[in-house]
């Protein structure tokens, strides 16, 4: 390899590495600042759209995340990407859903010439879109995600553009994994905190029933369960009313170390 080529290659890869490093820093800030996964995805979609747009080629970006037993999360850089993502979800077909299911990138360089998703492509062309690139994100979390890129131009994504999109998506997938993990842990923590509070009230009520009825713990519990199901009132609420009928207390603070 001649010196000249080496020099040019290193210049090229350095520029790209710096831009990617910058993207990673942006994503880290997003993770720290976002209050939930949807916020995070919306900001990430905006950053990806900006990074891939150049000149008159204004790219819209939508991100879809599917988690087990959760509603689908859809986020987008603008209204155009949002309505196109939603259209595909309504039709139940489209390049983005195909990318999601097959876990491979799908590129439609010219919507006018494509016959695979007639309903979807007609709607997209009506919205002023001429090419679509859908890149699946490979996640470690039990979730599936796809980044949908829409261009108003035919052949809106060059080889270089597709490479850039692939590299951004790969980096974005790691950030999304972290964000999903944090969200999952936060939800689990909130659920446990709520469970501890609820259990304290119920345990107290069981003790009161045991004392009043001179019965065993399990017999007292069955009384509580029966009352709750007959009156169609939550167990915790029945328990709270029993405790407050004895002590007059309405608040039951549970202290535990966070």
């Amino acid at each position, binding site marked *: 390899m001649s010196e000249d080529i080496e020099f040019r290659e290193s210049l090229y890869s350095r520029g790209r590495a710096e831009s990617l490093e910058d993207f990673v820093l942006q994503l880290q800030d997003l993770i720290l600042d976002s209050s939930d996964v949807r916020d995070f995805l919306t900001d990430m979609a905006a950053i990806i759209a900006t990074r891939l747009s150049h000149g008159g080629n204004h790219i819209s970006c939508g991100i879809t995340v599917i988690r*087990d*037993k*959760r*509603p689908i999360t859809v986020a987008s850089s603008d209204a155009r990407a949002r309505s196109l993502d939603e259209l595909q979800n309504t039709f139940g077909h489209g390049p983005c859903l195909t990318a999601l299911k097959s876990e491979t990138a799908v590129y439609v360089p010219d919507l006018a010439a494509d016959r695979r998703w007639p309903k979807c492509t007609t709607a997209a062309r009506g919205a002023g879109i001429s090419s679509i690139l859908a890149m699946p994100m490979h996640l470690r979390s039990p979730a599936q995600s796809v980044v949908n890129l829409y261009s108003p131009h035919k052949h809106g994504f060059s080889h270089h553009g597709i490479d850039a999109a692939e590299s951004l998506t790969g980096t974005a997938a790691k950030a999304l994994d972290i964000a999903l993990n944090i969200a999952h842990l936060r939800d*689990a923590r909130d*659920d*446990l905190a*709520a*469970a*501890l*509070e*609820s*259990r304290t009230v*119920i*345990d107290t009520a*069981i003790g009161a029933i045991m004392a009043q009825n001179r019965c*065993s*713990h*399990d*017999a007292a*519990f*069955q009384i509580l*369960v*029966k009352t*709750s*199901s007959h009156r169609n009132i*939550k*167990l*915790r609420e029945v328990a709270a009313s029993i405790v407050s009928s004895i002590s007059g207390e309405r608040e039951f603070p549970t202290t535990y170390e966070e």
Partner: protein
Amino acid sequence: MINDAASEGPQPAFGADQRQLAAAQFQSANVTLPELWTYYYGIGGNADELALDAYLNGMVELPPLQVNLLHAALKEITADGL
């Protein structure tokens, strides 16, 4: 669970139906197993997550009180629209 046999509540003859109902409710609810277990623990349940999983899949029996609590948890968690 020494007193479970003496306690009232649904009779063992309905055990299999009860279990199928619980399993079907869990399948259709937008709730994961850890979420269901946490809620069930919060209303006083004592079986661990593995035992709930095994019960819902027909592998083990749970004491009647724990079955009732699991049903109560499923009912409350689905009524919440979680």
